[in-house]
């Protein structure tokens, strides 16, 4: 089969590799019909994530048709499914509490060592996202082996377009969980840093959860325009002093809840960001946390901080004093995708959540390397690229 493989920084290629087969009884093989490039794939593309090996197949947002099932899979051949990016067993203590991304068994035993050393305990496995998260082949391919297929994938009713439901795999539940973690109360003002897909879904989710105002912060005009479409007020941080604007827009109080949907590759020429960039390139610090710093400073006293943004290592100059003195609450983590799927599928079917607005480009899977470069170089125009293995190359 053809699959998009990582070969180094800014070097991804379409490789020909063996088709995957059933290995374990709960496996299923999915023939991919749609797969997206995620903002977090750019972290891999830019070489920020350790434990990548040449030839690793990328992609953790995908859906397709079931073509093979193991003896203990509950799926049936021919079913269309969306697959969560988190690989969780459904039978351990954490899965029992619906903390799927904290699954004890999703990571192969040998791969658990790195995460245990870095984080204290190993987390769930992830598709196509380095060997620290299991070394599982990802979904930017014609076929994928899906472990624990009786727990993760959600079956999509006939007649519903791929483009409508594909984002159940990651970014929609991630945006939704981010809003849920902001513990929104009616009348709240919520500020969202980053109008990428997660930020835009967080904007929609925050309104559905009762926020009175949502203020979206970015520097790409096209992305800010999308946030505006859903009723958000906007701040372009290149034109406006963000903290001052947030304070003025909230009558000197600050937002009740803040959501950092930017993460470890924050853009922008802020002094702390430039220092972080130098440190990241010399391995003195791994993450560039400008947005979370600003969010904590802006958040109102006693407010809530939600951090869906991906951080992998250590940060410094974290405003721990402001965090403590103001008595803030922080909730964060990889998304417990499986927990949210049934409810969010319903919300899509009932028209409460718009998903297709996000897709700016559709292209054949074979054009994936071009897609990565476009997504990396043109973040204003490119909001989401969906790759279709079945689409003819133009």
């Amino acid at each position, binding site marked *: 089969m053809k699959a998009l493989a990582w070969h180094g920084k800014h070097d991804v290629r379409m490789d020909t590799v063996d088709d995957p087969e059933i*290995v374990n009884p*709960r496996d299923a093989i999915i023939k991919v019909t749609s797969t997206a490039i995620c903002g977090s794939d750019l972290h891999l593309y830019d070489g920020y994530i350790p434990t990548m090996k040449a030839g690793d197949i990328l992609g953790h947002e995908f859906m397709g048709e079931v073509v093979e099932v193991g003896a203990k899979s509950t799926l049936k051949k021919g079913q269309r499914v969306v697959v969560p990016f988190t690989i969780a067993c459904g039978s351990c203590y954490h899965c029992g509490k619906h903390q799927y991304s904290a699954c004890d068994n999703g990571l192969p035993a040998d791969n658990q*060592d790195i995460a245990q050393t870095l984080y204290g305990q190993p987390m769930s496995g992830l598709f196509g996202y380095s060997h620290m998260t299991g070394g599982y082949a990802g979904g930017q391919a014609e076929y994928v082996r899906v472990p624990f297929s009786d727990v993760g994938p959600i079956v999509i009713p006939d007649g519903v377009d791929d483009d409508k439901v594909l984002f159940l795999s990651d970014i929609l539940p991630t945006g939704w969980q981010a809003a849920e973690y902001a513990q929104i109360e009616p009348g709240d003002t919520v500020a969202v840093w980053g109008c990428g897909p997660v930020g835009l879904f967080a904007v929609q989710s925050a309104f559905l959860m009762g926020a009175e105002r949502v203020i979206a912060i970015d520097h790409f005009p096209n992305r800010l325009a999308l946030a505006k479409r859903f009723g958000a007020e906007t701040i372009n941080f290149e034109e406006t002093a963000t903290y001052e604007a947030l304070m003025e827009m909230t009558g000197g109080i600050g937002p009740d809840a803040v959501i950092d949907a930017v993460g470890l590759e924050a853009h922008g020429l802020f002094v702390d960001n430039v220092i972080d960039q130098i440190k990241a390139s010399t391995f003195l610090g791994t993450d560039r946390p400008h947005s979370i710093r600003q969010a904590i400073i802006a958040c109102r006293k006693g407010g809530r901080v939600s951090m869906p943004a991906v951080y992998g290592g250590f940060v410094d100059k974290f405003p721990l004093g402001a965090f403590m003195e103001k008595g803030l609450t922080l909730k964060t983590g990889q998304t417990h995708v499986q927990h949210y799927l049934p409810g969010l599928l319903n919300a899509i079917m009932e028209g409460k959540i718009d998903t297709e607005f996000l897709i700016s480009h559709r292209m054949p899977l074979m054009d994936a390397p071009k897609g990565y470069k476009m997504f990396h170089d043109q973040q204003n125009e490119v909001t989401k690229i969906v790759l279709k293995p079945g689409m003819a190359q133009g």
Partner: protein
Amino acid sequence: MADESVRDDAPAATAKSGDASRQFAQELPEAKGDQVVARSVTINRPVGELFTFFRDFSNLPSFMENVVRIDILDEKRSHWVVKAPGGGTVEWTARITDEAPNTLIAWISEEGADVPNSGHVTFRDAGARGTVVSATILYDPPAGFIGKIVAKMFQREPAIQARRDLRRFKQLMETGEIATPAMNPKQFEEMGL
């Protein structure tokens, strides 16, 4: 040696001082070995099920990566063939020195073992969380200190193995399978669990 009267409540094997193996040896009916490894894992299954599976030593190679074969000699004795660093194997005959259903299995290697060892595996009911399984192993590293370094390089060092084997035991009992990124059964074989 530390004053016993002021020792904390942590397991002996987590002590920073060097007498952990001596302290643990006192807990065993018969002890052999001067290095200690201790690992605990909580498994979301009833204690009886786990004990029964584990006590049938013919099940152990299904999750112990480096165990090539275990021959059951009689009710108390079993012969172990285990992969060694560098490609060879090491062997020993283990004898059960103490056993309590759903609670404990203690063993010691008999004379002539390539890697003299002893230890126990304990099972403790943890209510809604399942069962806490703890393995504590005393052993003499093959060819002393250098052997331990070599073993670590080949990831066949007992501390690494015990940790990974217990995780695989947990995976097998909780999910019915062992998690792997392998793309096909052949690759799974090559990866070795």
